[in-house]
């Protein structure tokens, strides 16, 4: 395989603590190597540019059934919003807020990303998820099956059977070729089977008689019992409602007393996703306000937590979540079309289009809340950039989010477009924050931090020799940053170079190669568990609508796998 050397760039690699030193990076056989070992490398001149590891997205809805419902039922998301096919790409690119699989892969690559963690996989639909992964070019994908409303999980945890739940979890990760434990509105989506919800973390789930708090604690124990690469990944109860920061703080406190146990360098026991949607004060839309400070004070003080933003980008987008009752609630607010899929024994999902308008007070407050979370953070290795794509906005807006975080001027310019600027300022702290993040901090939030939280920082998110040769070069000079924030956005939108697995994949912002992508999954060995085998057999015999032998993903439907092995037999 050909060799590469990326010369003279300003290297930013938080995993190694490199803060913009001028260094060369060597690449050989798809891996990063010491430059001394190269014999006759091709040179990429990165002088005057920033060199980072390929980006890692901790939470994004890019593949699977509800994403595809979002595509199917919104033809208007394509109309006048799709670019013409690039002559350098093999396939067309359609859609804006929910792009086609091809556009998803190309756009992530153009932004310098190489790894995207699909945020919610309904286990019953895992063959669908893997079909879409096959058709998403370039980027490596993992997908997290949802557990927080799964009948097996609810029954085991109700009886405090952590070992059984662990055995079931290991079985389901293997059956779906999944990556980790996702929890969405624990208990609430099961209650939604009856049109109900769990309104706080102590509200018991109908019939199963277990509370969301017990589900979350049980899953943290399960996760650490197994020692998975990633932690429990939680979408809290009561998303999106005024005053929900109280519930969020209660959810965060569930992690108290737990310490991470794993061999993957992960330091948290719980990742709380799209925290923006969970950091609201007030008791109505009238007195809706930011509680980002209160929430981040707690997160800053507890280093067994990581969070991601879920930043509102002020676009017309498509919301989609396994939080079925929330989507129903949302459609009663905006009266747009509503899709819903309840999935037997496992989960639910809803999809509703949404317009985050700078003319709507609640939307502009939400915008401020997201930015405040990052700007109040004391540890950006634990605070990640996401838009909960496509819920708060499409992932293609990450460069804009980065620009808002790096530039007070960019924030001010956006705020000038707000119809209710005064009310937004009153309800938030955004106007009092002058902090501007550095490139090093952005690298923490977009590659080093997420990779560490996902437990994959030995492969992704850094530039140390031996790691995958996934390298993004941005046309930004840290010693001479552009005064116009728009230039920052431009640089992060289309990287100067992306090397993926040692292959030059993007050049001058254009995709020039489509190297094989991978499916990353976690295979956990657990002791034989006859009880769990019997429970699985019984539920499939009586309650599932598919046969057990047709449920587990067939090997032929898993594409270019990279398996992470975990031994939990001890």
């Amino acid at each position, binding site marked *: 395989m050909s060799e590469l050397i990326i010369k003279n760039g300003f290297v930013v690699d938080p995993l190694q603590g490199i803060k913009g030193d001028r260094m060369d990076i060597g690449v050989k056989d798809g891996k990063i190597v010491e430059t001394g070992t190269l014999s006759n490398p091709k040179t990429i001149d990165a002088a005057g540019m920033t060199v980072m590891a390929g980006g890692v997205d901790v939470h994004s809805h890019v593949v699977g059934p509800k994403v595809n419902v979002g595509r*199917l039922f919104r033809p208007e998301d394509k109309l006048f919003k799709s670019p013409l096919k690039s002559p350098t790409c093999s396939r067309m690119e*359609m859609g804006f807020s929910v792009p086609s699989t091809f556009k998803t892969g190309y756009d992530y690559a153009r932004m310098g990303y190489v790894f995207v963690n699909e945020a919610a996989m309904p286990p019953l639909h895992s063959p*669908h998820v893997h079909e879409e992964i096959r058709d998403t070019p370039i980027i490596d994908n993992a997908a997290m099956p949802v557990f927080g409303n799964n*009948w097996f999980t609810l029954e085991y945890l109700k009886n405090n059977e952590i070992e059984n739940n662990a055995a079931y979890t290991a079985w389901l990760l293997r059956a779906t070729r999944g990556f980790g434990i996702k929890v969405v509105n624990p208990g609430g989506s099961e209650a939604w089977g009856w*049109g109900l919800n769990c309104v706080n973390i102590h509200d018991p789930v109908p019939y199963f008689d277990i509370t969301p708090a017990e589900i979350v604690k049980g899953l943290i124990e399960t996760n650490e019992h197994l020692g998975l690469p990633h932690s429990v990944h939680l979408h809290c109860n009561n998303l999106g409602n005024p005053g929900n920061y109280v519930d969020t703080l209660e959810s965060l406190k569930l992690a108290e007393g737990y310490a991470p146990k794993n061999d993957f360098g992960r330091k948290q026991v719980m990742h709380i996703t799209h925290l923006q949607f969970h950091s609201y004060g007030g008791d109505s839309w009238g007195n809706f306000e930011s509680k980002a400070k209160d929430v981040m004070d707690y997160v800053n003080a507890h280093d067994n937590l990581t969070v991601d933003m879920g930043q509102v980008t002020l676009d017309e987008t498509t919301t989609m979540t396994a939080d079925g009752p929330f989507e129903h609630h949302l459609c009663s607010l905006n009266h747009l079309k509503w899709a819903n899929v309840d999935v037997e024994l496992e989960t639910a999902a809803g999809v509703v289009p949404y317009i985050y308008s700078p003319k709507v007070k609640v939307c502009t407050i939400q915008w401020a809340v997201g930015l405040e979370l990052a700007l109040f953070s004391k540890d950006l290795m634990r605070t990640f950039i996401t838009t909960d794509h496509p819920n708060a906005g499409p992932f293609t807006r990450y460069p804009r989010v980065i620009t808002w975080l790096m530039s007070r001027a960019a924030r001010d310019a956006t705020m000038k477009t707000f119809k209710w600027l005064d009310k937004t300022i009153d309800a938030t702290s955004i106007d009092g924050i002058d902090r501007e993040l550095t490139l090093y901090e952005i690298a923490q939030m977009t590659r080093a931090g997420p990779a560490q939280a996902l437990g994959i920082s030995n492969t992704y998110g850094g530039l140390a020799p031996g790691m995958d040769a996934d390298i993004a070069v941005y046309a930004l000079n840290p010693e001479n940053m552009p005064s116009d924030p728009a230039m920052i956005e431009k640089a992060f939108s289309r990287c100067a170079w992306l090397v993926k697995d040692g292959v030059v994949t993007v050049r001058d912002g254009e995709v020039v190669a489509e190297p094989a992508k991978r499916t990353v999954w976690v295979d956990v060995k657990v002791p034989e568990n006859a009880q769990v085998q019997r429970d699985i057999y019984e539920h499939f015999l009586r309650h599932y609508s598919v046969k057990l032998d047709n449920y587990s993903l067939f090997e032929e439907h898993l594409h270019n796998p990279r398996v992470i092995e975990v031994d939990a037999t001890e």
Partner: protein
Amino acid sequence: MPKKVENVGCPYCGVCCDDLVVTVSDDGKQIIEVENACAIGNQIFHHATGGERVKLPRLRQPDGTYKDISYDEAVDYAAKVLYNAKKPLIYGFGSTNCEGMAAAAKVAEKAGAVLDNCASICHGSSFLAIFDNGYPSCTLGETKNRADVVLYWGANPAHAHPRHMSRYSIFPRGFFTGKGQKSRKIIVIDPRHTDTAQVADIYLQVRQGHDYELFDAFRAVVRGHEIPEEVAGIKREQILEVANIMKKARFGTIFYGMGLCHSDGRNHNVDIAISLTRDLNDYTKWTIMAMRGHYNITGPGAVWSWQYGFPYCLDLTKKDIAHMNPGETSSVDLAMRDEVDAFINIGTDAGAHFPIEAVKHLRKHPWITIDPNICMASEISDLHIPVGIVGVEVPGIVYRMDNVPIQYRKVIDPPEGVISDEELFERIHKRLCELEAEGAAKAEIKAAPAGVRAEE
């Protein structure tokens, strides 16, 4: 010893039964027995090895007869037809796997074709309603485990989806429905007193073509408004009774069929059915589901949505952007206007299903049929390419009517030399690329000049 293959998926209807047990002869060449399947599914398996199969592509000769040709020749013919056509149409896909659909899309994009599936003449009107109003639905196991009220409207599963009622809706005992049929109220609404109506607790004989009015009456009642003495041929008392049952249900599902999609009102009928479902969710839990016909007709809607964002009627003729506008880009409309100059019929029978005028127009141009069997389309084609039967001879993923992916198995080998839809389309794609390269070598290269592309 004959071999039993278990957990086999059935390539007949959208119910996608995956519990078939198929017994295959010692030599693996004959299907001896099929257990658990309905009469129609059973027949599909037996047909595979029961009679003569077409084993080679057949090309029409000047004298009107077919002559066997090799797959290479057939691939070359198909690629040249596509390459030379201005606006080819590739239509069908109800009866193949998703792998084949993905490969066909690659061909259509390369050739600049219109890509359409049987929804175009079936549940396409459902898509139109879904575009406008959404789709509050569930998987079939939810109905089985939770539903205490099941409503079939304009659908006759007793004939069209033979095991639907026993697997998912009326008869099975689920987690919260341990008494099976006894724990459920079954309502059937149909202008015809069908065999499905026979098993209903309540049957409403809606006046034919007046479904919309009846939905409207239900919505009015659910929302607490007065209705006239009689609506759409149904007495007020009965409407009040059924509305009350719906409102008091713990969990209900509306299954609807062609009776809504293809009677007066079409997409509007489906639209108001969705609206009624939405209304009912203000009180309790209701879901709605289209009774999709063929076992994988949900598939192309899924595959093409993730590839292009549109489920059907995809115009890819511009080659750089996809466009969907049913009426303009739908197969029958294109054919009636004689707008297509080549036609590939795959995994369906347009010869039997399209209006005769549309078929006559299509027949003026090259017509290729890709199908395991002899059908009306294959008999009027210029080229018939046989392929393996998905679910019997070719494995793959199919989408059940509730969008749940089912992994189908292979039970026996296809007849010697016969390839899959996927392989066939991959080979056509490869040949198309070669033709393009040859064409580019001969003519001026028409690629866009290199340079900066406009921002979004």
